[in-house]
């Protein structure tokens, strides 16, 4: 437990009954012993990771769930009776062929449509639902990784009371008795705490609850809820509204500390639309220009044409200045100088020149005032209706969640409530530091009347035995979204039915069931509840059953997207006093973690081992600071510091990140978990540091007045990449200890000198500006240097015939890759890629087949950032192949560089000879070690789990290629002799065009394109014919099948080249 963390708590003690002396003296260990002994309600018979489900058990569940085929619904337990295997096969199930179901994932309160691949009743992979407006077929890291959370062996498996195993019946009896007693005495003192609710069925249930218990109090708390956005709309228009952006129409985007490409509920849609308007082809005349003023280095910021890192409080002033220049009434002009002024002036001019096609996007971290001003600016520019619309919030009741939590704490403390149900979330961990929720809950749970009986009742529905469970009397396991029926709305209002694909693995319950229990409804299964709700909604509109089936099939309910609301002129709030940004103190910026979000994914090993954008850190968060700040404070990577702000302090490791503004510390929430699973917590107790301990409800986005104190100890931070190797930055050498002459240059632009191009630069990332590209489309090719111009000479005969299609190839567009990592997790899920743990990553043994390299160039204060996804290049002239002594890696006739795991004996020469270092080696039995428990149910049955001592690498998802190939061959067989020529070719090409690799399918921006390069009509072939197509290390004549499209910047001529204001 860290110093200054005052939320250390004693567990809830329960009734003072004891069964043994151990229990009396050491209740905690006795309880865990009892849990090991009697894991009631647990279908897997054992709480430990080591207790994998037996084959028999698995087949039982499998048979049962397959028979239901996802439509019959969830019974409360897998069947106990004797069951028989398929005699007559269920209609839809063909062994070996997956079924795809549409459902939706609730995330941060909102829904995102997903398609789930299910193999014989076992969900294995998540894809985006193309029909869902918040997904458009893409996924982010959280959606991809949620499949692993389903099989998390640390999920709670049984109803517990005071940490001891109990059962649902006991809980139901106690709760209903209590509520009955309450109802007779006027129903005072009942409270429920939920996350942000955007489920219509749940909304209706809560409405019913209020009818039944008129005095019931409903609180919502979601640490990352969009409170400032709502409050901004409240200030501008008098009511909370959700703002939606339509970036496919936008020419000029100005982001004010907004990471709309990653952190927004609609980020996948925004990323797709942003990329659409940003893509460069040989005939492109115009693309979007992106201005970003931000206080962190965000994914959005890395895509900017002009990026201005500023201290967070400056954003308000910049917004004011922009508003003043754009003629928003009632704003006095602010004077700035230097680059700040130039940035504002240019952005304002650009916006002015593009009325109706510009957009100003404020970030959630900024105060409501900024949001209100942004509304006013967008109105002044006539962007409303074209690039910006406002809709009614998707939430049942939009709330200021932090105020709600504060009220709940008050209610707990002053005794106005005595029964508390916490549905989901983990508020004891995620509560702001100034709201003593954990202490209040502990006191509340343990309060007793004089005779020793407990005064209050606390129950908690949660997925893990976590910080909140620890402080509650009852714990009920929560069903995963793939296990229980529900419904959810996206931020734009589009509603989806959440249909489960598998019976609850651990007897989990959904919130609907709990609410139904409180309502004493007879129909308590979530399936019936959801159906009943929608049947009631659609009483007058025809055949419900048909509608229900169609809706489930599609994954979205038609016509549920909210219509834009007409709003009046935005009112501008009086300028708040700008907080003084003194030089002596620092600003502390809070952001949800790009991998574990608010901490709810902390027990997901895929996300823990996912290299964080820019820093490539894994298994830890860190206090991020700029190189200048680091130099000034005498700090460097891995130094432990004490962060102190308004009387609270926490120890954290430092990580230097170029591109941050000076004098800020960026802290990601979600780490420092004290309970909640073996992955979330370290063997030593905590993983990372708990930024919530510094997070005050009044300053949710950022706070000022931080002081840093260097500690003597070091903190081992592990990153997948040695970060100074990634940067061609001038000026950080003295701090990083990097020898300048060993620092590689990787980025080339037409400004790169000839000498540097030929002799010093590695030419990995090629960047041109749009005007340069338009005046000379060959500009990128010329960046290849002399070697690119020479014909390839070889002593060997070119014996391979690559003219017969299909020939597989991939094109990756560096222009639209935003570095969001979705491809990495998608690849991991698709290809059964194991995790290796922090220690092994430190030894450079991570297994990801696909990585996203980030390179910095320019000055460390104002760097340009480039993302470069690197899968296997599938070289036609592969250096790995001729060095393998056993011929385990060979070339296919379709141009794939194939690994034959069976034939590999592990000499590792192929990796040594791979110039791209994309090969990964099983130094230990990673594939088996990392999935001894139920996680192995996630494995893709079409992909081999690799054994120890074997090399592996990206296969271009050969299992998907083969699935399509088999379909194609079947189709061709079905055709008559005459049809086989033209029609067969057309059909074949059409089927091959539908083929997507896992990374391609996940990519929100469509930056990855895969297909048959011999088919001139295919997207990949047209991309490879682009003038700015290039291959990595072309001078080695490896002839990679994976090629890149150069990054094309679109700087404002007024600000000049360089991507920096």
């Amino acid at each position: 437990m860290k110093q200054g963390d005052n939320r250390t708590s004693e567990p809830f003690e329960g009734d003072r009954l004891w069964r043994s002396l151990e229990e009396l003296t050491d209740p905690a260990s006795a309880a865990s012993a009892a849990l090991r002994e009697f894991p009631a309600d647990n279908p897997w018979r054992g709480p430990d990771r080591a207790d994998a489900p037996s084959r028999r058990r698995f087949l039982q569940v499998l048979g049962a769930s397959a028979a239901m085929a996802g439509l019959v619904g969830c019974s409360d337990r897998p069947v106990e009776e004797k069951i028989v295997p398929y005699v007559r096969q269920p209609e839809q199930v063909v062994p070996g062929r997956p079924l795809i179901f549409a459902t939706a994932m609730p995330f941060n309160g909102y829904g995102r449509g997903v398609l789930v691949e299910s193999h014989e009743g076992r969900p294995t992979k998540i894809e985006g639902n193309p029909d869902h407006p918040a997904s458009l077929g893409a996924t982010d890291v959280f959606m991809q990784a949620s499949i692993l959370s389903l099989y998390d062996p640390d999920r709670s498996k049984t109803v517990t009371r005071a940490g001891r195993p109990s059962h649902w019946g006991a809980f139901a009896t106690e709760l209903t008795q209590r509520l009955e007693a309450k109802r007779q005495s006027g129903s005072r003192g009942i409270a429920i705490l939920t996350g942000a609710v955007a489920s219509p069925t749940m909304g209706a249930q809560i409405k019913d609850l209020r009818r039944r218990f008129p005095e019931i109090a409903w609180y919502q708390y979601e640490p990352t809820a969009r409170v400032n956005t709502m409050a901004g709309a409240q200030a501008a228009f008098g009511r909370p509204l959700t703002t939606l952006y339509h970036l496919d129409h936008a020419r000029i985007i100005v982001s004010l500390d907004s990471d709309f490409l990653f952190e927004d509920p609609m980020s996948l849609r925004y990323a797709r639309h942003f990329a659409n308007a940003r893509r460069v082809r040989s005939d492109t005349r115009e693309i979007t220009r992106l201005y970003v003023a931000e206080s962190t280095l965000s994914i959005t910021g890395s895509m900017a044409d002009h990026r201005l890192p500023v201290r967070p409080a400056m954003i308000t002033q910049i917004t004011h200045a922009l508003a003043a220049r754009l003629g928003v009434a009632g704003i006095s002009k602010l004077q700035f100088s230097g680059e700040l002024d130039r940035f504002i002036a240019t952005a304002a001019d650009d916006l002015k020149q593009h009325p109706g096609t510009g957009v100003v996007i404020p970030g959630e971290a900024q105060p409501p005032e900024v949001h209100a001003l942004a509304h006013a600016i967008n109105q002044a520019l006539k962007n409303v209706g074209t690039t910006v619309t406002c809709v009614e919030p998707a939430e049942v009741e939009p709330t200021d969640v932090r105020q709600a939590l504060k009220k709940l704490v008050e209610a707990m403390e002053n005794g106005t409530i005595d029964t508390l149900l916490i549905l989901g979330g983990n508020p004891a961990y995620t509560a702001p530091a100034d709201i003593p929720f954990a202490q209040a809950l502990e006191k509340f749970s343990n309060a007793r009347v004089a005779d020793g009986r407990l005064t209050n009742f606390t129950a908690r529905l949660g997925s893990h035995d976590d910080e909140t469970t620890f402080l509650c009397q009852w714990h009920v396991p929560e069903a995963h979204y793939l296990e229980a029926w529900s419904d959810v709305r996206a931020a734009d209002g589009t509603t989806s039915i959440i249909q489960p694909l598998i019976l609850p693995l651990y007897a989990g319950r959904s919130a609907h069931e709990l609410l139904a229990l409180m309502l004493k409804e007879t129909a308590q299964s979530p399936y019936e509840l959801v159906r009943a709700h929608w049947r009631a909604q659609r009483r007058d509109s025809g055949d419900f059953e048909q509608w229900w089936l169609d809706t489930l099939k599609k994954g979205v309910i038609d016509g549920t997207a909210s219509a834009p609301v007409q709003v009046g002129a935005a009112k501008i709030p009086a300028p708040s006093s700008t907080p003084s940004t003194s030089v002596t103190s620092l600003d502390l910026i809070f952001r949800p973690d790009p991998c574990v979000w608010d901490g709810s994914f902390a027990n997901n090993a895929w996300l823990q081992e996912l290299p964080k954008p820019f820093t490539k850190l894994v298994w830890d968060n860190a206090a991020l600071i700029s190189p200048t700040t680091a130099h000034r404070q005498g700090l460097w990577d891995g130094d432990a510091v004490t962060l102190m702000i308004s009387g609270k302090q926490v120890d954290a490791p430092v990580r230097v990140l170029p591109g941050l503004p000076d004098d800020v510390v960026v802290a990601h929430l979600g780490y420092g978990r004290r309970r909640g699973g073996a992955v979330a917590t370290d063997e030593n107790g905590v993983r990372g540091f708990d930024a919530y301990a510094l997070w005050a409800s009044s300053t949710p986005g950022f706070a000022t007045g931080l002081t840093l104190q260097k500690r003597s100890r070091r903190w081992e931070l592990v990153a997948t990449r040695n970060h100074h190797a990634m940067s061609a930055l001038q000026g950080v050498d003295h701090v990083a200890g990097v020898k300048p002459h060993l620092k590689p240059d990787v980025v080339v632009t037409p400004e790169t000198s000839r000498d540097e191009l030929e002799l010093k630069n590695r030419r990995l990332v090629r960047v041109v500006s749009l005007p340069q590209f338009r005046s000379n489309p060959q500009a990128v090719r010329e960046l290849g240097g002399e070697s690119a111009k020479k014909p390839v000479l070889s002593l060997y005969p070119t014996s391979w015939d690559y003219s017969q299609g299909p020939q597989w190839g991939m094109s990756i567009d560096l222009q639209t890759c935003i570095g969001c990592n979705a491809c990495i997790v998608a690849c991991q899920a698709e290809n059964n890629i194991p995790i290796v743990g922090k220690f092994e990553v430190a030894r450079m043994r991570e297994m990801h087949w696909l990585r996203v390299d980030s390179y910095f160039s320019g000055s460390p204060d104002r760097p340009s950032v480039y993302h470069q996804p690197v899968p296997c290049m599938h070289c036609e002239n592969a250096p790995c192949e001729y060095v393998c002594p056993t011929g385990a890696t060979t070339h296919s006739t379709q141009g794939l560089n194939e690994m034959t795991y069976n034939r590999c004996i592990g000499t590792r020469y192929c990796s040594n000879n791979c110039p791209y270092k994309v090969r990964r080696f099983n130094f230990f039995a990673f594939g088996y070690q990392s999935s001894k428990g139920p996680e192995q149910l996630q494995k893709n049955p079409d992909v081999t789990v690799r054994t120890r001592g074997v090399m592996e690498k990206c296969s271009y998802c050969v299992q998907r290629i083969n699935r399509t190939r088999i379909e194609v061959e079947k189709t061709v067989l079905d055709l008559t002799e005459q049809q086989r020529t033209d029609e067969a070719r057309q059909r074949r090409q059409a089927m091959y065009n539908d083929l997507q690799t896992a990374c391609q399918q996940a990519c929100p921006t469509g930056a990855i394109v895969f297909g048959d390069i011999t088919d001139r009509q295919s997207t990949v072939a047209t991309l490879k014919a682009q003038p700015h197509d290039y291959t990595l290390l072309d001078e080695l004549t490896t002839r990679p099948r994976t090629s890149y499209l150069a990054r094309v910047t679109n700087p404002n001529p007024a600000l000049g080249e360089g991507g920096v204001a």
Partner: protein
Amino acid sequence: MTTQVSPIRPSPVTPGTEVLAPGHSYGSVTDHIGGIVLWRRFGWIWLAGFAITFLLVLVLTGAIFWLIVRGIGVWGVDIPVAWGFAIINFVWWIGIGHAGTFISAMLLLMRQDWRTSINRFAEAMTLFAVACAGLFPLLHLGRIKFFYWLIPYPNTMWLWPQFRSALVWDVFAVSTYFTVSLIFWYVGLIPDLASLRDRADSRAKRVIFGVLALGWRGASRHWQRYQTAYLLLAGLAAPLVVSVHSIVGMDFASAQLPGWHSTIFPPYFVAGAIFSGFAMVLSLAIPLRVAFKLQDFITLRHLDNCAKLMLVTGLIVAYGYASEFYMGWYSGNVFESFVGLNRMTGPYAVATWLMLTCNVVVPQALWIRFVRRSPFLLFILSLLINVGMWLERFVIIITSLHRDFLPSSWGIYHPTRWDIATLAGTLGLFLCLFFLFCRFLPVISIFEMRELVHQTGQGAHPPDRMEPAHAH
């Protein structure tokens, strides 16, 4: 095949340059060398040395056991540095082996009389070094149990090794080398084993040496055929001196990795191998001649000659280094020039500079006659060169791999305790075998020494009774 070989020219006997100290007869030679095996007591130094090295063999066994149980991950190898200590040690050991073959085959064919006193233990050294080396290609496999897939054996699946891979050539090179070295060594031992049989004082020794001597009677016909066979074997072994390490060099040269991809590797590896081999010969000979009072047989002349060879091969190696650094710069290739810079100034700069010191600077002392004739200085120098040559392989393998084309994939390599245990273990195995060898077999070829006695004119019997002139 003619067996008529012209007799060797007697060496000019000037003080300090003789290959055999004056005053030896056939009998004294045989008694002195054979006596070490037959009558000498086990002293505490030998026992202690054997115990320590045997302990290291146990360490090696433990390290191999753990490697097989846990997997290759117990070593420090990673991505990008997928080859580590195992390959370094392999190349080092196989290089050491080269001196033995060079002495016994090349010098035999070139009729260098001074080889006689040192060829026997140099050949044993080769054998043991190759045995140590041979362990590593097996151990470094991810799946050791399938090592035999490297061998072209007929199988029902018609699967053959991939003959374009230098690793397959390695299998042939090393196994041929081991086989030829073993046969050559054993054939050379046969007359001596017969001598030991004849002088043995117990039945057990007589039986053992008798079986090993394969019925050798010293008949003229025996000698005639023996010499022919020995020369033929020498002819077979001589090309191996060049081929084996050339192929090992090609393991690297055939890759496209900057720092490996270099046409100079085969000759430069061969020179380096003989360089390190002679260093190891000296490291073993100098203590040996003191321990068993063999100063009469292994004279300063021998040490001097070995030192000269070291100087020559050392200069070739130095030329190799210079050429590598120069070509890195001269090529104008960013990756090639980076390798040179990174070796000299990167994280492994210490290894590079130590290597240059040990292999280039230190051997220059051999220009001085005094150093070449000072056993103590030579011993220190030979140890330094052994270290330097190990570092050379470290530098070639690790620094080339750890920073190659894409900076995003740059890494670092740290050996683990298991890496070090394996290296120490093979050192132990090598020395342990050598300890056994020097007590149970004649460390110097007795019959060839007797010839030397004759040739240097010290023989007790008249010239017409000497063995046919087809001795060398």
